[in-house]
Structure formats: structure tokens, C-alpha cells
């Protein structure tokens, strides 16, 4: 679903500056005294020190009903931007205009108190997140049912398991009905089933015409939820546009670089130095965007010949699940550079990051074993079940037919 033409968030040349160290250490009165003693005539405001721009010259516009993702590395400024929009912190330069009631969900269980019961915490957290008492009372049963904690409502929260606390917290948050919802990473926790339930609920919220800004490091969540993405880097917008494009570019950039350099390995008799996809149809040697034939090559440098080599290769998913492995023995290799080439008719694995593992032994002794970086990003079209819990390891197009009048033998 796409947004209307009505802009609900307009950010204009926004900047946020922190003093370096401001977040790391609390001041004590003695600092004040020391400062006063050292520089009696200097205004305390003009303390020297380095400043860090967490955000610089950010301008963006978000229309009503859009679900927009913010991605970027740690420290890129995503959370700072969200905090400014949530009015938790003030910008240093520029301004933002927000129209509509803003709800922020930057943490799970904001305002929860361990001494209070589940029931009391629903009211407290709801009020802190911006709900009216009557509104909480009206949704109370729904919240409790969503959290699946009805039997423990009058138990103090400190006796809840962390899973139960999480579910209760989400349930409250999921029932917020602001016009604009700011969500920071909170879905990274909790068990998978409940996470999906929450994502489903958020999807409903989006369908109801509300605007969502969503920060996450999990690109699959971003892909699933967002239509448009801003990629922040070093406090500035590096790229923005449709989710697939920007997330793809981000994943490529994240994985650019070379194989891990390691001094131990450098001194050895041989090492793998590089891996890449040979035919560059995708524009990046580590991005796979086709379900057609693929050639993957590993570059090996040998400082001495190999007489009885054994070489293994494996492809693993990010959860370290083994996707495929293969090995060959009795290799004879000269000194110098070599290339191991693997050609597959197709690599029908579901989109996401994968890692190649390669190894080489000589006479049973390890020459080199490497977990290849960057990851291989698979960004092919998805041919799977529309529901995530039914997404499998394989991603293959298939033909489905219904034949009528088949005779049963």
C-alpha cells in the first residue's frame, strides 16, 4: 500500500551535534568546580572539546500511510533521527514538521515497573506511551489476550519470565493507535512466533492508513514491512528509494571489502585470497541476482607445490545452517596463483546473505581454511509461500497444474 499525497513528516536540513564523551561519562560537581577554578573568566558553555555530528543536513519527506525504513550501520544516525522525530531530543540545526499524533516504540516495555502487577503495568506503560486511561481500559482485554498472560495478571512483573514480559510489553505497544508510529529495532527480540504476530499487527496498522518509520538491522524485516527506505551513513542520507533497490545496494556495500587478512595465514604455505561470482551480471562480484547458471571462483596463492591435496567447499546460511558442501582429493598443484571454479546450473536458495567456506589440506595437514568474506548476497526473485513461516531453504520456481478427469488405476 502506498502513501497519499499528504506529507505528515517533513524534515528540513536537520542536524544533531553531540559533544564527544557527553554520552559516556556523567559530570560531577567537582568537574564544575575544576572548570571554574581553571578558567574563572571563561563561560562554562564554551568548553573546548570535540563535537560529533550524529546527523548532518538531513532532509526528507514522508507521506501519510507510508511505511518507511531507516537502515545503516551502528552510529549512522538512525536512532538519533528517530529520537528527534519522537521529540526525545532536540536537533542542533534545521527543523522537522510532524502532523499527527506520534507514538514511539523505541524500547520494549517502556515504563514497566517490576514491583507492579501485569495489570498495573499495562495501564502504566500504556499511559507513558501516550494512551488515555479510557482507551487502555477499552483495549485491556484485547491487550491481555494478545500477550497470552491472562492467568498472571495480578502477579508482580518481576515474577514473569522474560518472554512473558516481552509479550506483555509488545501487546501494549501493538495497541497504540497513533497516526505516526516510530519503531526502533524492538522486533529484534522475542521468540519468532510472537515476532511474526507483532509484524502482522504492525502490517495491519499500516493498512489502516497510519505512517510507520521503522529502524532495523534485519533486512528481511525491512523488506517485509517497508515500501521505501532511507540509508543513513555517517549522519547523512546516502541513498533513498524503493526498498529492494536501497537494501540491495546497502547489502552490497556492507559486504564489500576483501577476504579476511590474517598474519598467521600470510605466513603459511598457501592461502585463499579472494572469492567472487565470475559472470558479473549483477554489477557486484558478491551479489547473486539470477536463478540461471552461476560460476563461483576462489583464488588461491601457493608458496609451495601441493602433492596430495584435499579441498573442501561449503555454503552456509547466516544461521550457520549447511546448505551444500562438496570435496575433492588427490589434487596436484604447482606453486603460484590458482583459481578454483565451481559452476552451478542454478543456486536456488532463498534470498539473504550466505557465506562460502573453503579449505585446502596437503597430506592431511591444513594449508588454509577460510570463511569467505564478504558474504554472498542472494537477491533473486522470491518463489516461495507468501507466509514467512512457510519459507524454506530452497527458492525454486515451479509450475502448478490441475489435471481434470485423471483415471485412477
Amino acid at each position: 500500500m502506498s502513501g497519499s499525497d499528504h506529507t505528515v513528516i517533513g524534515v528540513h536540513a536537520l542536524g544533531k551535534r553531540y559533544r564527544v564523551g557527553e554520552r559516556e561519562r556523567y559530570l560531577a560537581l567537582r568537574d564544575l568546580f575544576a572548570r571554574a577554578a581553571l578558567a574563572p573568566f571563561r563561560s562554562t558553555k564554551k568548553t573546548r572539546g570535540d563535537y560529533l555530528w550524529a546527523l548532518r543536513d538531513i532532509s526528507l519527506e514522508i507521506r501519510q500511510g507510508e511505511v518507511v525504513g531507516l537502515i545503516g550501520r551502528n552510529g549512522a544516525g538512525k536512532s538519533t533521527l528517530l529520537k528527534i522525530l519522537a521529540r526525545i531530543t532536540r536537533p542542533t540545526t534545521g527543523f522537522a514538521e510532524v502532523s499527527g499524533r506520534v507514538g514511539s516504540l523505541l524500547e520494549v516495555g517502556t515504563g514497566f515497573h517490576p514491583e507492579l502487577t501485569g495489570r498495573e503495568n499495562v495501564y502504566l506503560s500504556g499511559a507513558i506511551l501516550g494512551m488515555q486511561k479510557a482507551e487502555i481500559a477499552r483495549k485491556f482485554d484485547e491487550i491481555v489476550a494478545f500477550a497470552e498472560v491472562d492467568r498472571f495478571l495480578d502477579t508482580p512483573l518481576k515474577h514473569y519470565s522474560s518472554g512473558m514480559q516481552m509479550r506483555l510489553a509488545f501487546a501494549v505497544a501493538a495497541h497504540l493507535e497513533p497516526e505516526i508510529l516510530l519503531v526502533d529495532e524492538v522486533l529484534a527480540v522475542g521468540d519468532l512466533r510472537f515476532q511474526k504476530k507483532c509484524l502482522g499487527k504492525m502490517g495491519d496498522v499500516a493498512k489502516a492508513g497510519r505512517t510507520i518509520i521503522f529502524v532495523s538491522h534485519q533486512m528481511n524485516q525491512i523488506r517485509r514491512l517497508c515500501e521505501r527506505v532511507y540509508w543513513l551513513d555517517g549522519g547523512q542520507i546516502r541513498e533513498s528509494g524503493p526498498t529492494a533497490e536501497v537494501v540491495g545496494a546497502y547489502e552490497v556495500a556492507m559486504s564489500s571489502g576483501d577476504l579476511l587478512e590474517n598474519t598467521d595465514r600470510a605466513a603459511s604455505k598457501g592461502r585463499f585470497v579472494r572469492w567472487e561470482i565470475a559472470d558479473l551480471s549483477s554489477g557486484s562480484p558478491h551479489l547473486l541476482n539470477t536463478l540461471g547458471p552461476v560460476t563461483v571462483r576462489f583464488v588461491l596463492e601457493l608458496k609451495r607445490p601441493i602433492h596430495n591435496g584435499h579441498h573442501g567447499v561449503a555454503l552456509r546460511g547466516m544461521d550457520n545452517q549447511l546448505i551444500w558442501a562438496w570435496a575433492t582429493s588427490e589434487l596436484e598443484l604447482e606453486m603460484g596463483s590458482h583459481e578454483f571454479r565451481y559452476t552451478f546450473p542454478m543456486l536456488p536458495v532463498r534470498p539473504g546473505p550466505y557465506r562460502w567456506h573453503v579449505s585446502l589440506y596437503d597430506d592431511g595437514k591444513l594449508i588454509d581454511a577460510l570463511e569467505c568474506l564478504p558474504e554472498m548476497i542472494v537477491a533473486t526473485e522470491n518463489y516461495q509461500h507468501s507466509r514467512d513461516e512457510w519459507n524454506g531453504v530452497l527458492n525454486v520456481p515451479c509450475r502448478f497444474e490441475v489435471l481434470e478427469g485423471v483415471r485412477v488405476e
Partner: protein
Amino acid sequence: MSASQTAVLQSPPVMKITPPGNWWKIPIGELWEYQELIYFFVWRDIKVRYKQTLVGAAWAILQPFLTMLIFSIFFGALAHIPSQGLPYPIFYYSALLPWMYFAASVQSATNTIVENQRVITKVYFPRLALPISSVLSGLVDFGVSFLMFVAMMAYYHVRPTPALLWMPVFLLMAVATALGIGLWLSALNAIYRDVRYVVPFLVQFWLFASPVAYPSSLVPAKWKSLYSLNPMTGVIEGFRWSLTGKGNPPGRLVLISAGVVLFVLIAGLGYFQRMETTIADVV
């Protein structure tokens, strides 16, 4: 387009988020909008305070009552401090009521920003709601300990006089003083973490600079003006007078104190507002 969508389109209240400025603007209207949240903060403070204690709300009585006993024994029975012809328990308890309220509220307001830092860094609400809640939740304890005073009045046959009608005024003054001081200290404590260690000393010192253990008539005339700059002087003298009807209505003293309270409160609001813009960055 659904009904709710049209509603949004019709009157979008545009909120402009800008760099800090205008710290002298007190968001009265916004605080009014957030009155339910203030109520919830007060409710939480009280619930939590009594859930974790052994005797619960009895603390609200025990604390002033035991202090009253100690004062009656040492300052009264032993030191023979003049008590305006009142029984020592009444003399002390009537002053300890506002004093205990003030001391507890100031201490709780000092810590409120730091104690609520997780909430402050995760969600917006006018930060003023926190010290205001601290000061309001102290009123519940005040109410409980006031019941004890009523019982003591009956026990000592001290009859209330029309002066009692003034009590709400002095209570309001006590709230304003606690809030004014609490605003300063909570903002300072957010920036300088050792403020909270200074506050107990400050409160103790303040106790002896206020007419709790003795009547203000003991203070030499030439120091009276300076003495009444302490806003708690007017509050406590006023309380004692309105509750017992003994002594003269503390006119000039109260006026000076009220002026100081007003100044402290307004300056405190300004200072707090100025700090508010950076609080989420430093806590």
C-alpha cells in the same frame, strides 16, 4: 479512504521540532493534556513505595511521629525550648507535617529525572510532569500523617480555630516551595550526579534553619528579615498558626516567604525548561 484517514487529513496539528530556544515558555497547556500521565506517575510512586515496605503506609505516620517524640524529649523536655504554650507533641508535629512533606518531596524530585532516565530516553512527555508528580505524590503521605495530627489534637484537647481555613494556603505554599526547589535539584542532579549526595545535608541544614525545632520568635529581631528569606519559615510558622490558632498570624514573615517561593518557583521552571532540552542527551 476510511473515516479515520479523513479525520487526519482535515486537521493535522502540525508540530514543529526545532533546536532549543524559548525556554521561558512554560507549557501549561501541554501539562494539562498530560494530566493523566501525571496521575499515573503519582499512582506508581505511591504503589511502589508502599509495596516494597514492611508496614506500608504506616511509614507516613511513623516518620513524623517518631521525629516528634525525639524533638519533644530533647528540645522540649530537656532543653525547654518555648512552645507558645502548646504541648510539645502538638508544637512539633504541627511543624513536622509541612517539613516532612517538603523534605520528602525535594528528595524524591531530586532523583526523579535520573530514576526515570529509561523512560525519558525512550518516549516524549513534558519532563516537568516528573518533578510535579514527585511533589504531588508526597501529598498522599501528608494526608495520612495529617490524620494522626487530628487524633493528637483530640488527645490534647486542642481545638481548631478559624485559622484552620488558612491551612490550604500554607499547604499550597509548601507544594510551591517543594516544586521550586525540586525543579532546581532534579535538573542539577541530571547533569551533576553528585547533587543527590548533597541533598540530604542540605535538607538537614535547612531543617535547623527553619522554625521546626523552635519557634521563630527565638530568632533575634535583626536577623528576622534574613531568616524569613527561607521560604519554609513562612510555611511552617503559618502551618503551626493555622493548625493550633496559637500565636499571632505570621503576616510579614509569610509575605516575604511567599515572594521568595514565587521567585524560586519561576526561576526553577525556567532553569528546568532550559535543561529539559538537553536532559535526554545527558542522562
